[in-house]
């Protein structure tokens, strides 16, 4: 049995990082011990096996993709400049104090803002118009103070959204499947709040599970631009229709077994869709709220967007809600104010919308930073 010291010398010998004195020690050890010789031979063979692993290469389109992502970044790199003059030492303390003050103020203010779960498809940039405040909807005391004394200055704190929260590890467990399927059977729509650590990866994983069910995923260009950012901070909305509860449960299970999703998704909360959700979503889609429940038949003109796989026939398995029906389409949107005309992608999505099938759901997914 080789000592720990002998093993250390042998592994460092393989590394080629021994002093001449240590090398002599190893030579002496090898001369005396057959076990050391065999062990060294094994280590060298392992090293060779690693060294001989085939070289992996990226596809030729990779560099162009990186450049495309760079070109949609909001800001180009700028050289770091050296300040021309040094500020007196006391300014550092003054700056530190100012930063602390600003942070305290920020924390105080953030405590008065709705939590991400409550900000359902909310337009973060635009404060809610006063007429949307419903007395009694929130904490009565807070609401009366706010509306009576500081109307338009502070928002009342909305109640926490009730729902079924599942940590990522729970997704791959089957105990909750029946619960979801049973609970959603009487719903027409479901809200899925997804807390993530990597927006881009999480959206990609969600797209994959949808596509695996034969659902075509269309990304609105503003969302695509934001997803191309290194660390996107925007919330994303994925909206799909005609999803059966058991199908949704299967998608969540698939997500839970996806190791790549594990690194980007932390938890999901399932809840019922509220009227506010519908209003916000219809705003993002550029349609009237009532059209969310009952889509007009091909009212929207088809834009210039033609998805690559549009010619592929939808199989009965791919669309279990209605065998032989056209493929379903899900839309990925950035959860921000819509400016300008509808994109061709969004027009395509609206054009593909169909009446909700009996027993099927509208699914609103909000992807936000955990």
């Amino acid at each position: 049995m080789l000592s720990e010291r002998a093993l250390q010398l042998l592994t460092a010998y393989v590394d080629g990082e021994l002093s001449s004195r240590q090398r002599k020690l190893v030579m002496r050890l090898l001369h005396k011990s057959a076990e050391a010789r065999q062990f060294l031979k094994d280590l060298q063979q392992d090293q060779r096996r690693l060294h001989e692993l085939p070289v992996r290469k990226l596809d030729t389109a990779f560099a162009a993709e990186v450049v495309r992502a760079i070109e949609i970044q909001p800001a180009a790199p700028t050289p770091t400049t050296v300040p021309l003059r040094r500020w007196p030492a006391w300014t550092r303390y003054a700056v530190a104090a100012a930063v602390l003050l600003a942070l305290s103020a920020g924390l105080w203010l953030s405590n008065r803002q709705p939590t991400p779960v409550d900000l359902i498809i909310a337009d973060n940039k635009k404060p809610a118009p006063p007429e949307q405040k419903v007395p009694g909807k929130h904490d009565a005391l807070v609401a009366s103070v706010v509306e009576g004394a500081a109307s338009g200055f502070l928002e009342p704190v909305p109640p926490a959204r009730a729902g079924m929260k599942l940590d990522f590890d729970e997704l791959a467990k089957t105990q909750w499947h029946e619960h979801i399927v049973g609970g959603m059977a009487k719903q027409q729509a479901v809200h899925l709040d997804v807390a993530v650590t990597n927006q881009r990866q999480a959206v990609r994983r969600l797209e994959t599970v949808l596509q695996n069910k034969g659902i075509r995923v269309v990304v609105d260009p503003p969302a695509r631009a934001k997803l191309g950012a290194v660390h996107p901070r925007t919330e994303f909305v994925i909206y799909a229709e005609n999803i059966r509860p058991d199908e949704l449960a299967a998608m969540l299970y698939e997500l839970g077994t996806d190791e790549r999703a594990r690194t980007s998704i932390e938890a999901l909360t399932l809840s019922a869709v509220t009227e506010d959700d519908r209003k916000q979503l219809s705003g993002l889609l550029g349609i009237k709220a009532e059209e969310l429940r009952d889509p007009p038949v091909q009212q929207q003109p088809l834009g210039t967007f033609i998805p690559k796989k549009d010619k592929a026939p939808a199989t009965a398995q791919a669309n279990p809600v209605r065998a032989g029906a056209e493929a379903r389409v899900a839309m990925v949107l950035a959860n921000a104010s819509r400016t300008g005309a509808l994109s061709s992608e969004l027009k395509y999505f609206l054009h593909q919308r169909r009446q909700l099938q009996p027993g099927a759901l509208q699914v609103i997914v909000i992807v936000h930073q955990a």
Partner: protein
Amino acid sequence: MNGDDHRLVTASLAGDTRAFEALVIRYQDRLFNTVFRLVDNAEDARDVVQEAFLSAYQSLGSFKGDSLFFTWLYRIAINSAISMKRKQRAVVRLASGLESGTLAEPADPSESTRPGRALEMAEEERRVHEALARLSAEHRAVLVLKDMEGRKYEEIAELLDVPIGTVRSRLHRARLDLRDILLQAEKDVEQ
């Protein structure tokens, strides 16, 4: 810094994305090959490499030029690969990523012409890749950097931002663990 890299970095800072594309083309495969061995599968490796280039581009202004551009880029990619592995909570993915669409080239092209060699190589790669996947992210990183990249302790320490003594001890432990895993795998095959 390499003179040509310096020229391309300067041009990139001036807003020339084609110059940055040239840097991507120059280093993408070396980076991908290393990251692929750290994160198990080609798709994650591609993501990590892409993020590394995008992060590098965004931080190009802070790149001081006192180290090689590639070393700097490497540090970004390897740290994010290790962080990804830590999050995956040491789940072993058998034969993952090897079937992906990325291109694999044999280390010795002449060998690949022997009949049956391709199958043997694929099997050997699977065995070694699986063994690597069982190591911790930290142990895997030092082994890949040492045995596949041929880097010295000092360079590995700089890349991983750890003392040289830590590199030495991690490599020692990684080699012993790899030996045990490969030995066990050989026993399993014999049974």
